[in-house]
């Protein structure tokens, strides 16, 4: 499958798609999107890249095992969810910065939570697809 055309196209598609996925992640609180879809799109970007360039290339590109994103993402989600416990509030209570940040809007624990979701979804999808590709 390593055709020249596909390879070249994928080289350009990868950053585009990842960029787009971050966009989808960040605006999820206001418009359709969010961590899931964002994560799925980002992982699809890498999947396309791996189809075109071979798995090794993609792995070199990512530099670490995508599975590593899973505990990291879980950790982020967990921390953003559990932070309120330290001030005797319930799990998942929203904590917000006072003022909105440009581009992103209001920043609060929900956003971090969504970012955790985003990372987990990338980690999961890539782990699954890469593992399958490796053991074909």
């Amino acid at each position, binding site marked *: 499958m390593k055709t020249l055309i596909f390879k070249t196209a994928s080289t350009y598609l990868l950053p585009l798609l990842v960029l787009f996925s971050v966009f989808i992640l960040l605006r999820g609180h206001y418009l359709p999107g969010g961590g899931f879809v964002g994560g799925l799109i980002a992982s699809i970007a890498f999947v396309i890249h791996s189809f075109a360039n071979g798995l090794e290339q993609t792995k070199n590109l990512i530099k670490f095992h995508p599975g590593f994103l899973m*505990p990291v993402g*879980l*950790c982020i989600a*967990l921390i953003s969810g559990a932070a*309120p*416990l330290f001030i005797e*509030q*319930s799990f*998942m209570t929203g904590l917000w910065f006072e003022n909105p940040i440009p581009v992103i809007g209001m920043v609060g624990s929900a956003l971090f939570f969504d970012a955790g979701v985003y990372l987990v979804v990338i980690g999961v999808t890539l782990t699954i697809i890469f593992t399958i590709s490796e053991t074909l």
Partner: protein
Amino acid sequence: MNNPYIVLPVIFQLLTSVLLMFFWYRVNAQRLITIICSIISVGIATWLFKEVYQNGILTMQAGEWQAPFGITFVADLFSTTMVLLTAISGMAVGIFSTGSIRNARLKFGYFPILNFLLMGLHGAFLTGDIFNLYVWFEIIIIASFVLITIGGEKAQIEGAIKYVTMNLLASAIFLTAIAILYGLAGSLNMADLSIQVAEIENRGLVNVVAILFLVGFGIKSAIFPLYFWLPASYHTPPPAISAVFGGLLTKVGVYALLRIFTLIFIPDEFLGNLLIVLACMTILSGGLGAILQVNMRKIFSYLIVCHIGFMLAGLGIYTELAIMGAIFYLIHDIIVKTNLFLASGLIFKLKGTLNIEKLGGLYKKYPKFSLLIAIPLFSLAGIPPLSGFWAKVFLIEGGYKENEWMLIGFIILGSFLTLWVIAKLWSEVFWKDAVDLPKKINVKYFHELKPFKRWAMVIPIILLAGTSLYIGLAAEHIIVLSKQIAAELINPTAYLDAVLGIKSQTP
């Protein structure tokens, strides 16, 4: 009363898993973490139990969104008891695993998954939201899928196909039930549903939804005629995994049945009779299956089915006494079944097989182990005053009160078959002369293990045996507890008040 910390068992378990994932290939670190964290986990569960026992029902409204709008967690006596039992069983299995699970499996996420599974169990017990219960169930089943297949041996995979199919089917039915329930009542909070469902005029529909829940949870709790996946699969994974399955997984289904059918759907006459008939058939099928088997773990698997029938019977009779019996049995069964599967692991390490026809001579060669294993075995057989005995008294009396003669007959039959099977097992495995078995090259026998691993396998069994002795001999404590739980279930006003506050007063 509100208490944000009642989710600690869940969160701590998640934390443990995440921590373990960071030590992916470092098995010894994983072992250490597992031991420490499982002990802490029992500590947390004990704390929670104590809090609830002293202060009554505690709730946590996730995100501080008041019920029914957010996801509510409710720690009542029933759920905290289950959490405590889960933590204890989990600790036993965790420690046992440090000794018995081979490194290859540990390098592929065994411990994180095990802890995820425990997290799922804690969550399922504590949640007060029906859809949240669904997602916890999903955690439980996916984690169990992974555990049942980890290692990927032929029998494991074959068993897993059935296990996975049935569980996915159950999930689909459960989800269907939730869909319809939401379509009817517009709520997901179980306490709120309790009120909403009671007000629905179209009782026919409510009854239909109840059937869906019954079958969905029934598959998970392995009742007749929905139990097939269990004997097909529970004996295939490593014993530590069977232990957590045998001890805890089907009980979640029972927990859910008890919860749903006391809080949301109060069984009408048809459903009550149906439950009784199913309980009888479950007892019969499990007992009959068990007497035929020669593989120790398959015997235990069928006995799980048989004893689920006892618990179902309590729900079918639907009096405080009968439910108390079911709860008592549930408590006993979790500890004892876990222990028996662990014991089967120990026996496997000693002899290299679990076929009772090939086994033998254990009593002669390992008298202390034999006596140790005898405790859970005879507890299961219901030899008084061991833990399996008490519940039967309540169930039988509960049956009399409602004139369920057939059920009493089946309880006697089931008890007898259990007794017989256990006696046969004892005679075959422990009494019969040992046969020379060929040494298996891929088995590291008990005597070849390092002392740490040996102790890691024996200590949990001692611990659980001690617990089951406690349940039997200090039955008073457990009876008082079960009685309180049953009372809470039968009359859920306290639950409703705790979750909904003033709202429950003015429906």
